């Protein structure tokens, strides 16, 4: 799942054997959990008037080639035309606090909002590289899309030293592909948020009953079937040229059979389901009666 507009950048990776053998490989892909992303947006909202951009620390896990950003926290920093300062004590203290709750998550890099990479970015990158040593720190640049003419999106970079004599303020930010990733179990929460975001008032009330959600899903499926049907009819009547790839996909998808249901499986499952429903209601009424009896007993 790509985040933001696709770029034409070539993802360059240095051959690990060319560097010193003990140096870990540079990450080749970055995944971001929505929780981390949304915290960054919230931090951006709460910046002070004088702040142009906000920065913070990314926490997560890393494998040899992949970095998974799972959460983030804001870090105080100040930028003037002469100097940049990052509150390191704050960063350390906050990391300690996060570490207590989630010991698996380690510092993997840092984020900043806006998409300009400058000398200060290189300096901060240098600082975070020390924090994540011997692994490389990653940098997430989140464009919030509030400035005109810029599209919201997320870009990930790894720093690479440049120049004959590498200096901390010089650095090439090499882009790394970045994706949004969340667990399947969290999927419905994201659905809830997207639904909320598209509603007019940006709010939605809870709790929603299971049946309502089911109804919506079925309606969506119906809409999709209708769309497919119009497409097929257009192809059949010769208005449109059929795409064999789409035909294949449709065949695979719609060819699934429900034979099990027809061969008596339906009735036995139906009985099971009804039994469970009966049992559940029985248990509930028993509990209710029992609690009333406790009140009546003298």
């Amino acid at each position, binding site marked *: *799942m790509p*985040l933001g507009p696709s770029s034409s950048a070539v993802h360059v990776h240095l051959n690990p054997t060319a560097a010193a053998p003990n140096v870990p490989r540079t990450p080749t892909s970055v995944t971001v*959990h929505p*929780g981390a*992303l*949304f915290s960054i*947006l*919230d*931090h951006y*909202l*709460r910046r*002070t008037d004088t702040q142009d951009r906000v920065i913070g620390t990314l926490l997560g896990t890393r494998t040899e080639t992949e970095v998974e950003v799972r*959460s983030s926290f*804001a*870090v105080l920093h100040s930028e003037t035309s002469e100097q940049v300062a990052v509150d390191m004590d704050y960063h350390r*203290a906050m990391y300690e606090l996060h570490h207590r*709750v*989630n010991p698996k998550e380690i510092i993997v890099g840092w984020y900043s909002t806006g998409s300009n990479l400058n000398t200060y970015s290189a300096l901060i990158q240098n600082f975070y590289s020390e924090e994540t040593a011997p692994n490389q720190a990653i940098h997430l640049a989140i464009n*919030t899309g509030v400035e005109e003419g810029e599209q*919201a999106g997320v870009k990930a970079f790894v720093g690479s030293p440049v120049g004959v004599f590498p200096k901390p303020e010089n650095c090439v930010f090499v882009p790394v592909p970045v994706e*949004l990733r969340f667990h399947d*179990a*969290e999927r*419905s929460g994201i*659905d*809830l*948020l997207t639904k*909320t*975001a598209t509603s007019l008032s*940006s*709010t*939605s*009330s*809870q*709790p*929603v009953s*299971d*049946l309502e959600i*089911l109804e919506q*899903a079925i309606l*969506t499926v119906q809409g999709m079937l209708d*769309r497919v049907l119009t497409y097929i009819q257009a192809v059949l009547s010769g208005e449109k040229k059929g795409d064999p790839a789409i035909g294949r996909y449709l065949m695979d998808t719609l060819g699934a*059979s*429900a034979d099990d249901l027809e061969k008596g499986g*339906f009735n036995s499952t*139906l009985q099971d*389901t*009804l039994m*469970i429903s009966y*049992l*559940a209601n029985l*248990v509930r009424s028993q*509990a*209710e009666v*029992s*609690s009333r009896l*406790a*009140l009546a*007993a*003298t």
Partner: protein
Amino acid sequence: MATSMAAALAASLPAPSAAPAPPTPTYEAIPASMSKVIDIEAEIPLTCVQLDGMVVTKLLKHAREAPSATAHGLLLGLDLDGTLEISNSFPLPHHAGDEDDRSSKSVARYQASMLRSLKEVQADDSVVGFYQATTLGAFLNQTLVDTQAIHQEKLRHGGIVIVHDISQTARGNASFRAFRLTSAFLNAHKTSNFSTSSLMAHSLTFSSILEEVPLKIRTNPLLSSFLGTLMEPDESLASLDGELGTGSAIPPSFGVLEFGTAGLTRNLEQIVEAVDNYRTEEGNLAYLSRQIARERLKADQFVTKRKEENAARVAQGLAPLPEEDVARLFKIPAEPSRLESLLLLGQIDAYGKSLAGTASTGLVKMYAAKAGSGA
């Protein structure tokens, strides 16, 4: 963001011209348009809870990753005109089982330094309640009730608890509910008296321990627009065929249509377990009440005997023996607390409700599948 709207409004006002002495904090006048909705004394009752999108993702993540189904943490926010706006949250460290003094102290320290740190980056730092993850809807337990009872005394507006059901979320319906304790339960809890008579006086059943507060999910405009960008179809896929398929960072999911009944067995097991626990608890209660009855009987017998004796002594012209030392001689145990059994009943009910919900959606899905198969 709406939560900090009041603060932002106050901050944007011109500072009073006469600068007061530095040690006294300056309180700027609340503008007339806001004077109705900002209540310093917490007089406007809460009618609604509003949960920010970021908190939703944080809760989801914590609930899924926590080692057991005991993920809990604090909610931060502000109230404005009867709506409690929850704008941030942080998880509390998980500690196994017994809560000794040292660990609770370190949790308090953790909490204080976390709040201080959040304040430094302009996040809300007032605790308004806590959240609790649960499975299959059975969130009613002693810890939750006790914590909330403490909060309800300490926090402004009494605080609320947000319950997040992991199993329901996994089934495709992210569920967040807000609760607070009813006044009847609080009265009983204050005297920590949950005997039968007290329950009757407050007419407490498991359904009247907590009252639900309406909950809304809100995404701030920045988040809404960002999500909108994420949902936009990818250009590379859009060129393939405009009418079919949308490629975006968040593809549509149909997890709710999953036909599996994997959770059912677990749910049934939970019910059996809860009923077993309830039976044990009832057995304990019955044992205790039998003991009470026995002791009382003994005491009564003693009193009647003493009375007869005294009558005989008076007849013989002797001074009667005192009758008041019964209470000293016979220790009648206090009536047992029925809170535990009440909570267990609540759990059984919740499991039953969740099972009924699964069964009913299962039924719909079955008929949908049958209709689809053209039978």
